[in-house]
């Protein structure tokens, strides 16, 4: 019997094509690449360091060029303060880049952790059902009714002293529940599919079924959700930092920079404009990419747009 392989596009090619045909998603992707590039390469573009006050004593030249009195200069390319300087003469560009790095890193890690937790717990609950499901969903419901922002604010004293990684875990711990519910319902319909049933009748153990069959078949959902979670996590982090409960000085994040700049937003707009602008661009870009991914993975969800 001769094999006639269908000469159609693979799923991956199709998704890529649909994604790149979507203009707003493409725009989002370009913005996101730009922002990430800026965060990674930014420190090499400026002679100034974000924690200038520490190096002040060591680097006399730096001190000479930006003494306290010389603070609050407007953005200019001549003295290489692209975004101007702050009240203490620190370079706003260097600070913004540092804040961007931190916010992106926190956002990314929170998304990875929370989507991971959501996938594991949701898939386990949805596949096993029964008592396990009831227990896990009880936990989900409990966490959903807790005022997460308030709890994080109260806990802030404790985690601020032990570093920003703890903040990541706490943000993730309060962020996974909705996704877990979606994953659970998808798993419940997946477990009734014949290929899962076939695996069960072959004697494949539960954890293997979840890892080998359930997860890959939910990949699109998880990727989309993870992407959108990055945006959400960045917003929660900046929100917390803005109110002083997140990343704490001397370290900076976009949120704490915006908080510092708001006081003089009208008189010295460069203090908060750049960090605020980058925050908006980043979150918008992530949302556009996430929406684009969803449309590419699941064209049915889109309203009739195809010609």
């Amino acid at each position: 019997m001769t094999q006639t392989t269908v000469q159609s596009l693979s799923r991956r090619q199709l998704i890529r094509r649909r994604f790149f045909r979507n203009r707003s998603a493409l725009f989002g992707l370009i913005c996101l690449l730009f922002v990430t590039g800026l965060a990674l390469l930014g420190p090499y573009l400026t002679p100034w360091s974000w924690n200038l006050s520490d190096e002040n004593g060591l680097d006399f030249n730096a001190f000479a060029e930006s003494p306290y009195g010389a603070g609050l200069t407007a953005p200019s390319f001549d003295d290489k303060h692209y975004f101007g300087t702050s009240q203490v003469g620190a370079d706003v560009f260097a600070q913004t880049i540092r804040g961007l790095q931190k916010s992106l890193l926190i956002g990314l890690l929170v998304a990875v952790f929370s989507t991971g937790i959501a996938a594991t717990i949701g898939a386990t609950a949805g596949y096993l059902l029964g008592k396990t499901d009831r227990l896990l969903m009880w936990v989900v419901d409990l966490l959903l009714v807790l005022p997460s922002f308030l709890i994080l604010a109260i806990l802030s004293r404790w985690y601020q002293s032990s570093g920003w990684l703890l903040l990541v875990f706490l943000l993730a711990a309060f962020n996974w529940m909705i996704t877990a519910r979606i994953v659970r319902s998808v798993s419940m319909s997946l477990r009734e599919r014949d290929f899962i049933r076939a695996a069960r009748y072959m004697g494949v153990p539960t954890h293997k079924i979840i890892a080998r069959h359930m997860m890959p078949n939910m990949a699109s959902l998880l990727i989309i959700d993870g992407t959108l979670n990055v945006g959400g996590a960045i917003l929660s982090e900046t929100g917390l930092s803005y109110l002083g409960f997140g990343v704490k000085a001397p370290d900076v994040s976009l949120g704490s920079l915006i908080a510092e700049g708001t006081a003089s937003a009208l008189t010295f707009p460069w203090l908060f404009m750049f960090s605020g602008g980058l925050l908006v661009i980043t979150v918008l870009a992530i949302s556009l990419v996430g929406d684009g991914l969803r449309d590419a993975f699941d064209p049915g969800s889109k309203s009739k747009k195809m010609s």
Partner: protein
Amino acid sequence: MKKEPILQIKNLSVSFPSESGRVEAVRNVSLDVYPGEILGIVGESGSGKSVMSLSTIGLLPDAAQISGQIIFEGRNLLDLNDLQMSKHRGRDIAMIFQDPLSALNPVQTVGKQLAEALLIHQDISHEAAIKRAGELLEEMKIPKPYERVNSYPHEFSGGMRQRVMIALAIANAPKIILADEPSTALDVTVQAQVLDLLKRASVLTGASVLIVTHDMGVVAGIADRIAIMYGGKIVEDGPVSDVFENPGMPYTIGLIRSIPRVDSRQKIRLASIAGSPPSPVNLPPGCAFGPRCPAHSSICDQKIPELEPLNKDQRVACNRKDDIAGLVSSGNLYPVEPIVEIKKSQSRNVILEVKNLKKTFPLLKGQILRRRVGSVYAVDEISFSLVEGECLAIVGESGCGKTTTLLEIMNLLAPESGRIVIFGKDMAELSKSEKLAMRKDLQIVFQDPFASLDPRLPIGEAIMEPMGVFDISKADQEKRMQELLSLVGLNPLHANSFPSEFSGGQRQRIAIARAMALNPKILILDEPVSALDVSVRAGVLNLLSDLQKKLGLSYIFVSHDLSVVQHVADYVAVMYLGSIVESGPVNEVFNSPSHPYTQSLLSAVPVPDPKVEKFRKRIILEGDLPSPINPPSGCRFHTRCHVKQQKSPEDQAKCVSERPTLQAKRSSEVACHYSS
């Protein structure tokens, strides 16, 4: 006698843009429909049959690019806009869809929907329309029609809904009725009723009926003329008896020869057409059937054959149409191979035994406090046994509990009541490790090969998966996987491809390979061919019988398709509403059925032979399958039984009050008080 055609399709081509290229759904098709005739359009999935019929009524999506003409009463329907077209829809051309549930509006009564159809095209009062709706339901033999006009679609069963659809279609006495797979979603006994009514509708209104179907058997009984479609073209058309008796196109010949027939007395190996239907995105050059054709020659790759007259009424699109008859008679085309009977072991070792198996599903009510208000009797006290090396078939309509029975066996758990004994071991006493070892010998092949393979797993890995459960080295797994792929007739080089790259038939072969990986002794087959295209079914059935011969497997074969069962099974058990009504050797049960249900089931199966169909006495059952929540008292079949109706009232009372048990009769067992 040649009448003027009522509808002329001229050089119709329809194509759609798609992600992977242009889909050429219909390619340059011309077809005439004459008044009052029933025309069957037969084709496999992707052959363009549905697209062609939808273009007649102007229901194609906007993206479709259409060229050609569809002439109806002197006007080209393709020139009309949607508004003009809607004047014809319903009044001149009516449509019956495959799925009656989604075709009816669930929040309106059927009377209202029928009245709506009437009021659009006719100038009558609302009351008159409702009254007419009742008459229409009466014509479609719906019981208590004038009361049922106030019922909602969900209050009707599938078969009844399809009757409502037919009533809706004939409401305005259209000239043409399009029926797109009208009986595919229905059970055999209900299908017979619906086909009967369709014929009645044609007689009542004088309309021409276009039946679009994949089932040759359906058209053989009802159609006057048929057109066979393949790869977007009509490859053969003509009067139904001529086409069946003397098919001219190799595809038609193969198709007719590849269908198992329920009335065949001896088992002949089915002719199987190589390969699978082409994708409409990527049609082969020249004749679309060329690559699969046993009479393929070099001209077939170059020239697209057009329909040319073969004799007076019959037309064929084949480059070698003049040679085909010679090839068939000399036995060079689809040669007939007799089945080599395997010697069955005389000992008749029973390897799987089910005794008084019962499975009920609780019916729960209430939101907070869930109480059990009743039970669904999915499987009610059934017993059967499987003999080593044989094929046991369980037949029945949907909802009779055949799949539940399989799942009960596959779960390897103690059943609710009764016993399941496999290889002499009772499932209730199985330890965890014994259970795992048991999985090795008991494997299952599911109905739908599109659902039973993980779309994200390359097929090689899918086949190796059951071996991964047991300690088998990776190298041995690879080797075995390659063997299995060649065993089921696939190229081992394709092990890294994903399931989406294969057609339905190939996927089912992969699923069979996976089930065979651990050399099981029992293979459970849950409707293994019903989701496949007609032309690839024979290949899979032949593969299954080859495997059985080669490896001495035992099968439990579950199916609703009696002709397939007749072909593969040695022993058959007929189920109705959770219990077995008749069981015995397949030849005996099929040739002289004793239970009235078996009789009616057999007579309802369409036979792909117009001659037989025309003169066959049919027992058409009334009504639908009763609900298993509230099964009838006594004999479960008594509500629909035709034998009971001829009995005296005292005898009838026995059917209602007393439940018959399986009684030995010749070498079979029958559960009926008055079995013939």
